[in-house]
């Protein structure tokens, strides 16, 4: 996958997170790629309910299936991990 494509995918993921979770006052550029999404160190500081909403949104937007809780936990680790999962699943 080319660098531009990867950047574009990560931006799309960040915008999906912001839109799905109705996050105001945070722009996609401010969301870090590799800091855990569910960590207080991440500007988003998400929780488990956000996690389920995100799983649904990712499945819906990218037409992929996140098989179970364990897979979801790994996929939703960070923006980077979501992008890696989508790249693998979609053969990008």
């Amino acid at each position: 996958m080319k660098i531009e494509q990867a950047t574009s995918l990560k931006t799309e993921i960040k915008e999906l997170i912001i839109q799905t979770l109705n996050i105001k006052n945070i722009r996609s550029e401010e969301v870090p790629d590799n800091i855990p999404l569910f960590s207080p160190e991440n500007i988003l500081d998400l929780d488990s309910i956000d996690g389920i909403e995100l799983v649904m949104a990712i499945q819906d937007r990218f037409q992929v299936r996140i098989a179970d809780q364990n897979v979801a936990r790994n996929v939703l680790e960070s923006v980077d991990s979501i992008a890696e999962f989508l790249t693998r699943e979609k053969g990008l």
Partner: protein
Amino acid sequence: MKICINGTGNVSPQPTWDNSQFLEQVQEYHARMIQCLEPDVDPGLDEKYLRRMNRMLRLGWIASKICLDDAGAGVPDGIITGSGWGSVHDSEKFLLTIYKNKENLLPPTPFIQSTHNALGSQIAILLGNFRYNVAYAHASFAFEHALLDAICQLRSGEMKNVLLGGFDEITENQFTLIGRLGRWKNEPVSNLSLYHTGTSGSIAGEGFTFFCLQGEETSKTYAEVKDVMTLFDMPYVDRATDGIRSFLQRNGLEPEDIGWVFAGLNGDVDDDQVYRDVLRNLFPAGTGLAAWKHLCGEYLTASAFAMWAAAKALKAQIIPEAMKILGASRRKEINHILIYNHFKGMHHSLILLRRAG
């Protein structure tokens, strides 16, 4: 024991959230459905809370906060709410997702927020109040039953300070579904001309109205709630008339003691005829008649808007021009206001307020 209204908060299709105003200016709509104005009020919550709250929870929270701030009474002993339709938007969202996802993975937020008690629970969480918390869901009697419970809790001494709310939200889908029952006008009308249309149906509305009820008067007291009564399944004008008369009598009043009646006229020719017949049978000429549903639209807990208006009127000793149908000629002071509402001429409700002091 007196049941005193010591604080109010009202978010509606009118600019009612500012307690220093009282319908001096009203909003005109040309519509079949009217929705709440967004109050220019800081909800006082972290962004993290706000982003997950749906519109109903946000407006309801703001109304309750205005009410609690108005009363200055601190955290209530109980939170009692009534809602006829409940959390419509999130129920729709949840059900549509069940359908779309073939009953597989479902979104938790609209599920959590899809129930009639979602607002009462949310207020409790935000206030850190985990005491008595009950939601009434009895259609057109939801607010009246919540009020009755509040009165019982105060009179029994179980509570000293109750946060009482009546709320309903309207959505496009809800409007369409109820419209199939012929409840709404076929064409958009001006809400300020609602009672002159001479056609079937009303305009759909919504509102979030809260009261702080306490067992004693304070410097903030608006009015005293004297009584509330519901008449279930009574599609007869003469029996409804008798019911209202006996309601007044049990409060030591005769029809001529009532200065103003706030009637739930809604612009539907058949519904309004019931009000006219009952009131003509009962009240002498010179009794003031006011209406409120042209301001907030028709919804199942619209009587909460009327109780807000009556409480404000008793305190200010003014009936807003925007509400007057017939001016009172018999007396200048406003001592009692009777709120009379009915649902399709079948289920009638009465709330009696008295001037404080």
